[in-house]
């Protein structure tokens, strides 16, 4: 049974497909490959054409039973005899593919007698095969010594032309792969994001990547607005702000930062009001397109990964959860903890589905109902508070005048910021009472926080509406009387100033919260007091929602303050560095996390919703509200969009007729119905596709489990066969059995290689 076999160095055949040598089969070659030491019991040495032209022994596997009785070798060695079939039936040389295939399986079936096979190549295919093997040499799982010898062997026998072409081809391939890998990380802050992902993982890094995306978006908006709107205003050098316009920022209120300074006349050929309106509209459309296309790209990329996510949860945890790139003890310790927690959770889920007693579940239900009511109350209360403060401010407190003025000016932003500081904290704490699973906990908190931000935005908008109508009313009312309440009414300026104030205070609030809650806590811990109080986790979801809120403010105020996008950029940059430093110094990675690929799109989705809210509000303002008559580029119009129609009015009549006709209900309603039908149709189609996909997945699972087990069972029977039936089976039969075993091996091997993405 100690059959020496071309493919094996140690014959320890165990009667299965996985006959592998029991000891690592690295042979002791000396540097010139002269000595071959093996530990086979039988050593059939090869004929002496072992030495090649240079008199150097080429690496061979001893015991090549080429001329030996192959049929006995095939069945009595209970091992796979792929090679013997090939060698016996085809004395033709093996192709490059075949050699590579066997090299790839060499770690299972023992080292390959590559020198022998290479020597047998046809002269005409020899060069190609050499090139082929050398190209893929690094991917073969053989020992480095073997690889180097093989590489030297091949290089000695290859033409210089093919060698140089190969190296240049490889260099090009390498460059291309490096370039494509680095493409997404071209740009600012790559080093920082890389460090963050090394310490905290890719989930936390996704927050910073999201920040980067928003910075790019804001820069784009700022550049467009600055170039097309602000620059002409500055260059034309006439500040169109009416006299008597006073704002909360003093001189700055009448500068180009705000709406009021933009004039409504043409500058040479450049129609400034039209440019203002069109640029603003174009910027919004651009944002929309960028967000949607980014979502689309990300979604189509993620589809590939998502197909088989939780197929083998336990196996993937055991085999691929350790991150070998972790080099710091803290990172390693944390990773271990995360692995432990995840494993425990998986075991718990797998073992026992929810078994809680009747009292427990009703108790939980009551608690959850109460908490939800509390949440609604908090939301309603904060909305009402904002509205109230925006309307009136009655300071009957005994405070110095400057403080009173300050508070009066900044009352709304301060209230909004204070709410923003505390309400998410309340939500964070309250969710623990409800006892959801960690994943659900995360989702519910995110939903509530997102709702809160949206609500505060909406209320803010409503209060701005109040401001505008009040201003118009004021001016109109007092126009009839002798005294004027207000010299000029420029409500856009006021709204713009409010938005800028909120943005600034928001930035201040972020810095203050971080200093208070994170730095202070970290300082306390580092000083040794209260060491049981852990560092705060980096809660990605609430940070991202924070940033989205800031971006919505920018979108809201863009019409009233064209340079707000630039301010947004500055704010985001400050926030980035601040959060980066905080994360490095004072925070720990979160305990539970979304899969990173999914969460990227989720935040984009929330961003899109916020964008729509802002855009539709602004569209409403543009269409419905009357621009102030005293300032701004639209003071001559009744409605802002009339700037377009008054210019479009210059177009030929038939176009105007068409536009008027198209906007009548006769066209609009059928179009809407048709779009609805289209949506329904695609939804039905996608539902049917999902059903097909589910069926196919079922089938795959079935194949993997049941079918493969059958195949393995059959193979086992076949191997056990010849021993059971004795050695008297005919050579033909034996060859057939080994052929079938060969096909089953190649099947599994090829299916496993085919299943690679």
């Amino acid at each position: 049974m100690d059959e020496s076999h071309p493919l094996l160095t140690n014959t320890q055949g165990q009667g299965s497909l996985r006959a592998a040598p029991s000891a690592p089969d690295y042979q002791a070659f000396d540097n010139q490959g002269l000595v071959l030491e093996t530990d086979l019991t039988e050593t059939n040495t090869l004929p002496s054409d072992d030495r090649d032209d240079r008199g150097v022994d080429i690496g061979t596997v001893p015991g090549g039973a080429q001329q030996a009785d192959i049929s006995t070798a095939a069945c009595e060695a209970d091992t796979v005899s792929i090679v013997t079939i090939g060698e016996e039936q085809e004395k033709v040389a093996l192709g490059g593919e075949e050699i590579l295939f066997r090299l790839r399986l060499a770690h299972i079936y023992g080292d390959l007698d590559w020198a022998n096979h290479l020597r047998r190549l046809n002269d005409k295919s020899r060069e190609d095969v050499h090139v082929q093997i050398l190209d893929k040499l690094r991917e073969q799982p053989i020992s480095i010594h073997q690889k180097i010898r093989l590489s030297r062997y091949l290089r000695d026998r290859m033409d210089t032309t093919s060698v140089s072409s190969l190296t240049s081809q490889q260099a090009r391939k390498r460059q291309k792969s490096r370039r494509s890998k680095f493409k997404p990380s071209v740009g600012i802050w790559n080093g920082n994001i890389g460090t963050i992902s090394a310490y905290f993982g890719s989930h936390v890094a996704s927050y910073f990547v999201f920040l980067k995306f928003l910075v790019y978006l804001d820069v784009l908006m700022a550049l467009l607005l600055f170039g097309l709107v602000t620059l002409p205003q500055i260059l034309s050098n006439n500040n169109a702000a009416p006299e008597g316009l006073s704002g909360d920022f003093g001189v700055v209120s009448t500068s180009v930062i705000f709406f009021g300074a933009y004039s409504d006349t043409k500058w040479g050929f450049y129609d400034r009001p039209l440019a203002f309106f069109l640029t603003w509209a174009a910027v919004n459309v651009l944002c929309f397109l960028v967000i949607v296309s980014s979502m689309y790209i990300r979604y189509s990329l993620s589809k590939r990964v998502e197909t088989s996510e939780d197929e083998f949860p336990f196996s993937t945890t055991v085999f691929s959860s350790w991150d070998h790139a972790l080099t710091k003890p803290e990172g390693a310790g944390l990773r271990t903890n995360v692995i432990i927690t995840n494993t425990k959770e998986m075991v718990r889920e797998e073992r026992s589905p929810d078994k809680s007693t009747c009292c427990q579940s009703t108790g939980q239900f009551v608690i959850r109902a109460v908490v939800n009511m509390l949440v609604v109350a908090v939301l309603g209360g904060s909305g009402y508070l904002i509205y109230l403060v925006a309307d009136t401010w009655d300071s009957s407190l005994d405070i110095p005048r400057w403080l009173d003025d300050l508070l009066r000016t900044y009352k709304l932003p301060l209230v909004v910021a204070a709410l923003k500081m505390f309400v998410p904290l309340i939500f964070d704490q309250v969710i623990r009472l409800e006892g959801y699973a960690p994943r659900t906990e995360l989702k519910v908190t995110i939903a509530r926080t997102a709702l809160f931000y949206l609500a505060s935005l909406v209320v803010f908008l409503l209060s701005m509406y109040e401001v505008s109508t009040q201003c118009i009313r004021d001016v109109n009312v007092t126009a009839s009387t002798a005294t004027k309440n207000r010299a000029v009414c420029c409500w856009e300026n006021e709204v713009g100033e409010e938005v800028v104030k909120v943005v600034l205070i928001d930035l201040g609030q972020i810095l203050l919260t971080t200093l208070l809650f994170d730095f202070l806590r970290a300082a306390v811990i580092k000083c040794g007091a209260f060491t049981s109080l852990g560092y705060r986790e980096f809660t990605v979801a609430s940070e991202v929602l924070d940033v989205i809120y800031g971006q919505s403010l920018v979108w809201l105020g863009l019409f009233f303050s064209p340079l707000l996008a630039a301010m947004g950029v500055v704010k985001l940059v400050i926030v980035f560095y601040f959060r980066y430093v905080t994360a490095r110094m004072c925070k720990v990675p979160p305990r539970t996390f979304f899969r990173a690929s999914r969460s990227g799109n989720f935040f984009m989705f929330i961003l899109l919703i916020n964008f729509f809210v802002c855009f539709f509000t602004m569209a409403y303002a543009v269409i419905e509200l009357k621009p102030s008559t005293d300032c701004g580029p639209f003071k001559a119009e009744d409605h802002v969009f009339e700037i377009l129609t008054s210019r479009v009015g210059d177009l030929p009549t038939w176009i105007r007729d068409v536009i008027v006709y198209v906007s009548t209900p006769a066209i609009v309603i059928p179009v809407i119905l048709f779009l609805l039908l289209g949506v329904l149709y695609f939804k039905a189609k996608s539902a049917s596709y999902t059903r097909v996909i589910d069926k196919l997945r079922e089938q795959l699972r079935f194949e993997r489990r049941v079918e493969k087990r059958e195949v393995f069972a059959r193979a086992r029977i076949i191997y056990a066969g010849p021993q059971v039936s004795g050695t008297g089976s005919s050579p033909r039969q034996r060859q057939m059995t080994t052929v079938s075993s060969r096909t089953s091996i190649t099947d599994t091997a090829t299916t496993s290689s085919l299943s690679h993405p």
Partner: protein
Amino acid sequence: MGNKISTFTPEQLEAYEDCTFFTSKEILHIFSRYQALAPDKVPYDMTGKEAQTVRIAHDVILTMPELKENPFKDQICKVFSEEGSGHMTFEEFLDMFSVFSEAASRDIKSVYAFKIYDWDGDGNLNRSDLEATLLKLTQDGLTQDEKNFVVDKVLEEADLDDDGMLSYVEFEHVISRAPDFLNTFHVRI
């Protein structure tokens, strides 16, 4: 390079480039890291047979920051060294980091992952191998009961021919469906 003494001959560098996933620059960088581990033992001039004969001891290699915190560090050194001793020549050192590099193919990573997880080296992952792996991963975090449960589940998921062990084919079948495998089986040097 303006040095008069070059560390490797061009043929050596060519061979290394063929056999690993590194460029010459990276190979030299790795050599500088190798040498920094034992400056008195490793010469600057490796043009002779030093790359195959000079070995750095096992415990010195494990002091590298890239490996120090790795629970599988002993096994990794054992797999990549000759005869499983853990003492590595430069070529073996290079091979190790080549397999762990970003450019390495999934196939070769899964082969070596299998070898790393195969503690007794018999070419199969049996229960004791899986238990040892889990122990290294979780230290004392799991109870024996939970550990047994996990190992049972792994065998249930991956063992297709029901022999109580995972062969390479079964292992590779599972690992090719692990979405994070390429990212986690990666050491930066």
